[in-house]
């Protein structure tokens, strides 16, 4: 139903899903993903889980996860003159959020502006407020209420070559990757794993949702899909990951050191299939991978990350070639099945 990666990502990225308010996007995902899975469920936190069963007896469980939330703001106070006060949800960069168009959860459009006379060096998220054109508290409340959320309203656009820029590619691009994987696996009846596809909530506020869905599914193996920063921009600190250089195989971030067996098996698969890869080491920042690894008695968890420039802005930039590399690598790795041995675990 989606003609291209771009169409898929554009559809996903147009849905508002600020942490804690993922419900609408989750409902759409459920409908789109349903043909590819045997069971569908949602847990108390709002995580969406679809499971594809296998004809293979006693197959181990593999969980593929991507968080479906995005950074944004929650309305926590409305002034008497109608202006909207906000609290940041997730790690928002005030430079990226000053003087931009936003959309609210009940559909209103508005602008996010900095307090007048706020000096650039004093800029903080709590210096921002929103204006939807209303002139009183009462009028604002018709369209926006305390507890509602908003996020950058910038449509996706194609850049030259295979590059795409826009808002919320973190992590709608990875949700699209899982969609592609599920679609391509859907015809297989004897997968080496029982595969769970989990779309998790509240990653941007501290990897909260993945904890409960991983507990319920109790996987033996897990692969997380998320974006990762590139170190090829002007002013960037040194680092390995480059845009367009292939699937990024996570080695470490602030939440995890990925077990060697997972890294080795992914790298070996990429080599055999001639899929471009690069090693990912994030200097600061985390992902759901660390939470997955520490589920129950421990899970062999890794991550295939999509290189992305300018994360948490309206100009997040990815390369479709990296997208393709990740889908291919994940598929090949899954089809090879249980390629790893955990000797130390007995």
């Amino acid at each position, binding site marked *: 139903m989606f003609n291209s990666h771009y169409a898929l990502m554009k559809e996903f990225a147009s849905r508002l899903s600020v*942490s*804690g*308010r993922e*419900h609408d996007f989750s409902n759409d995902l459920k409908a789109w993903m349903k043909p590819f899975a045997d069971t569908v469920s949602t*847990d*108390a*936190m709002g*995580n969406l889980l679809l499971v594809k069963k296998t004809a293979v007896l006693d197959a181990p469980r593999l969980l593929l996860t991507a968080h479906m939330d995005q950074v944004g703001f*929650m309305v*926590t*106070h409305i*002034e008497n003159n109608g202006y909207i*006060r906000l*609290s*940041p*949800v997730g790690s928002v960069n005030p430079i990226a959020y000053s003087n931009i168009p936003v959309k609210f959860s009940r559909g209103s459009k508005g602008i996010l502006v900095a307090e007048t006379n706020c000096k650039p060096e004093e800029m903080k998220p*709590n210096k921002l407020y929103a204006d939807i054109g209303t002139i009183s508290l009462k009028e604002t409340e018709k369209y926006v209420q*305390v*507890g509602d959320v908003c996020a950058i309203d910038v449509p996706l656009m194609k850049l030259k070559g295979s590059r795409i820029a826009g808002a919320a590619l973190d992590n709608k691009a990875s949700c699209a990757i899982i969609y592609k994987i599920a679609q391509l696996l859907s015809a297989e009846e004897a997968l080496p794993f029982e595969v769970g596809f989990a779309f998790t909530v*509240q990653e941007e*506020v501290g990897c*909260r*949702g993945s*904890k*409960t*869905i991983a*507990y*319920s599914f109790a996987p033996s193996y897990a692969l997380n899909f998320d974006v990762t920063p590139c170190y090829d921009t002007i002013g960037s600190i040194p680092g390995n990951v480059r845009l367009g250089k292939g699937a990024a195989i996570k080695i470490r971030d602030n939440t995890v050191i990925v077990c060697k067996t997972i890294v080795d098996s992914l790298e070996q698969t990429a080599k055999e299939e001639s899929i471009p890869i690069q090693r990912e080491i994030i200097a600061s920042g985390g992902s759901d991978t660390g939470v997955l690894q520490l589920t129950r008695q421990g899970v062999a968890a890794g991550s295939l990350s999509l290189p992305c420039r300018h994360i948490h802005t309206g100009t997040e930039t990815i390369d479709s070639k990296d997208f393709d590399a990740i889908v291919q690598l994940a598929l090949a790795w899954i089809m090879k099945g249980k390629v790893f041995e955990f000797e130390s675990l007995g």
Partner: protein
Amino acid sequence: MQIENFFSLCEVFGPAGEEKGVFQWIEKELSGHGVSITYDKVGNMHLYKPGKKPPPNKVLFTAHADEVSLMIQSADEMGFLLFGGSQSLTSRFAGNMMPTAICGKRLVVGKNHIPGVVCIKPISLQSEAEKNKPPFIDEMRLDIGAKTKEEALSLCPIGSLAIFDSDSYSFGNGRIKAKAVDDRIGCYLITEYCKQNLPFDFHAAILVQEELGCRGAHVAAYIQQPDIAVVLDATTAGDVGQVSGMQCITVQGEGGVISYIDGGTIYDYALTQKAFALARENGIKAQVKRMATGANDAKSIQRSGVGVRVISLSLPTRYIHSSACVAQLKDMEAMEKMIPLLHNQFAEE
């Protein structure tokens, strides 16, 4: 509310890690009321009172027993006790306390309630720089009147816990002042609710070590595995001089605080909206939290096991985490009225 009874609960010695006094107070209050009481391995108290029927949903009410406190770490040769470790404005062992709220205050140490006074260098000996900044915790000492290191440590061994020595009273127009309002208000409201005849079975947990990072809640939530949790706590009221609008966080006199978001949790949207609707329909005041600050046990409970739908109901409290917490009686009464409504509604949600 029987305010004198609430004051007696606030005055109980209950630092994080030594909450037994609070549990004894609750046990005494509830004897003969048909409440079964058990304790888990980290010391949380679990309460169960059968109602007329079991509810379709298991709803867990929680409050935390502990209060902000300090831990004795060593003594100097002159017999003064040290209670801070790092050059930080807040002590690692204090929960989140402002140094200015500790300096010059009376404390009591340990279960023998050894009294002492927090002291720093006299103002006449302070440099200009020292006068113009808040004192660090490790620049303060606790004077318990001991003459030697040995005497000090024999009265208050290393690891002893100290809390504010502070009385309670009513003042102004319906206000009260006490220590440990955070979160004896939650403990009190749960205790009072347990004394009633209830339509549904009632589960509650009185939690330990919230002030150190919501530690007891992890264990209690895992044991109870509720469908829904209602966290009763106290939160900052910043409606004081020089602060207005959003920065008040919450204001006194506007009822219990039902947050959409705080620093630790994004609360269940549907339940939060339902709680506000219940308040409106029943003419009870309730308010939102205007900034995403602070955190409570909801953050541990929400992410426990397969996940729990959480909401919180908090008392707007001025000068929280100090020896003189100030609250309004009518906010407490508004919370008290909300509890049966929330229990009955969520049980059948």
